[in-house]
């Protein structure tokens, strides 16, 4: 089996952070906040967060915040719940949550909850269980879950549960590993995992593992490194991770590395990107690959960061 080329991945991420002028960076500038979360969390898992200038990052993050309390994907972009979570997560990595006006941010998120308990992504009203997870995760980190109607939030998520035990984006939506992560994560954080048939969902999740060892997101689809996170963290949260072959998954993730230039891709020999680099490394952390910091499966942040948030004060 190969090994994790840590140093190359660190260099790859640092080069992406610096590279603001090439076409890909310019074209993706609207989701730089997500990119920052993927890149910086990966660095932290690899033990190299100190390679980054904290003050520069924090100052840039705060420039992305709007009066409403929400954060945009970059300077000059509208606020959205997606980037608000990433902003809060990055600040948490640096132990800089204290720069936030907590009332402001939490009001923004709470304001996005709908009558039926679901959450919209922003003022334009798109509803998706991804946003339920984001709201719950973010408010929990900021110790303000009490600002939303948790019971209704939970019942909306439960209404998205399908007969295969999985969850979709909205009621009736096809079960999909990404949506499952969001729903399971939200239920875990709110202490509501009893709504899940863990054996049934666990079996659906472990059926995602294909012969070559990688995981797909739905039946009869191709494996992708990002499912190493969505499926794996879900299995861990419902305590069924021993149902997949960990060894085969580790091998699959390692095969997705660009061992020369660093970075990880969706499947072997494809082009790398920060998104898949993060999910590959995070997946390896969940699989207890040596030399990596432990990551929390529900909050998707290093365990020491979570401990600091919940037990550090």
């Amino acid at each position: 089996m190969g090994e994790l080329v840590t140093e190359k991945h660190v260099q790859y991420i640092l080069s992406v952070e610096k590279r603001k002028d090439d076409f890909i960076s310019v074209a993706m500038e609207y989701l730089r906040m997500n990119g920052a979360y993927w890149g910086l969390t990966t660095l932290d898992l690899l033990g190299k967060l100190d390679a980054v200038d904290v003050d520069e990052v924090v100052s840039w993050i705060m420039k992305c915040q709007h009066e409403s309390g929400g954060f945009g994907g970059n300077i000059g972009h509208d606020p959205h719940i997606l980037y608000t979570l990433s902003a809060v997560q990055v600040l948490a990595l640096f132990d800089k949550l204290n720069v936030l006006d907590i009332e402001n941010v939490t009001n923004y998120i709470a304001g996005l909850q709908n009558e039926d308990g679901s959450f919209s992504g922003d003022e334009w009203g798109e509803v998706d269980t991804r946003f339920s997870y984001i709201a719950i995760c973010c408010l929990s980190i900021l110790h303000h879950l009490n600002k939303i109607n948790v019971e209704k939030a939970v019942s909306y998520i439960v209404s998205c549960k399908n007969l295969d035990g999985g969850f979709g984006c909205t009621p009736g939506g096809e079960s999909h590993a990404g949506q499952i992560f969001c729903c399971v994560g939200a239920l875990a954080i709110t202490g509501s995992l009893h709504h899940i048939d863990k054996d049934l969902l666990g079996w659906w999740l472990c059926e995602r593992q294909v012969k070559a060892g990688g995981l797909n997101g739905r039946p009869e689809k191709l494996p992708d490194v990002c499912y190493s996170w969505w499926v794996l963290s879900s299995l861990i949260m419902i305590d069924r991770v021993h149902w997949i072959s960990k060894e085969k998954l580790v091998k699959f993730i390692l095969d997705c590395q660009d061992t020369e230039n660093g970075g990880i891709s969706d499947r072997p020999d494809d082009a790398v990107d920060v998104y898949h680099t993060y999910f590959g490394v995070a997946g390896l952390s969940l699989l207890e690959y040596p030399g990596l910091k432990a990551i929390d499966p529900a909050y998707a942040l290093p365990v020491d960061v979570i401990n600091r948030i919940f037990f550090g004060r």
Partner: protein
Amino acid sequence: MESDEVKLQRVPLSQRPEWSDVTPVPQDDGPSPVVPIAYKEEFVETMDYFRAVYLADERSARALRLTAEVIDLNAGNYTVWHFRRSILEALDADLNDELDFIENIARSNSKNYQIWHHRRWVAERLGTDSARKELEFTKNIFSIDAKHYHAWSHRQWVLLALGGWEDELGYCQQLLEEDIFNNSAWNQRFFVITKSPLLGGLEAMRESEVSYTVEAILTYPENESPWRYLRGLYKGDTQSWVNDPQVSSVCLKVLNATNNCMFALSTLLDLLCHGLQPSQEFNDAVDTLKPSGPDQPDSDLVKKVCSILEHIDPIRANYWKWRKSKLSSAT
């Protein structure tokens, strides 16, 4: 990316008379350096002009055209979509034209949340009259990618909010004929039989659906979806599932064929755990599948099934071992 032909035709914004009064605004984190390749300059210039109208909150016809240019270059930029909606509202634009615009953009950008959300926003405003168009639009996407998650989500919303259920079961049938492994189509089938106001509901549809599903299973027993669908048809009524002779008989048929038995075995396991009294035929079929070798002999049918599953599905050996261990603790 734009074709070469279009690139040749594009006039830089700085040279267009209708934009002469506007000063473009560069990105905040420093001026972009000059890059040699033409399309990058074009991209940067278009974004700079967009920033100017966005900051000035100019909701005009030319701003609307500009957002189209930005979207064409970079359909993921959600701020531009937001602003476009603001302009459409301000101008009280004909949203039917907007549907055409989205259709064009979707051709090269369909895996993009912004397009789908925008489409829904437009369709909501157009109301039930747009139902047929929306179903057509998603159908076109499915002809390229029949498992497209966003498109399925949109189609479900259309049916619930705007109607158009008449041909939906037929459409699922068609998709499954094209690819019986399409899990999205199976999911949609369940959606239709449970939520369509034109059908009788799950229980009324159960018998015909069971027959349909059994046929599907027999063609490709290794197909995960119909096995799950079969179980789903008995939602809330496990005993009927256990007692339906069609269910146990399809398991037996697949086991006797000895090929691709995994789901047949796991279904048999579930049936046995829920009280199925197996006939001798089941014992015989399972005995034929037993791996030869020095395994400890299991006298129980149900234990034999677990052992075989461990053997033929080794990647999930831990799961099958756990199923077996649950049996011991239950007795």
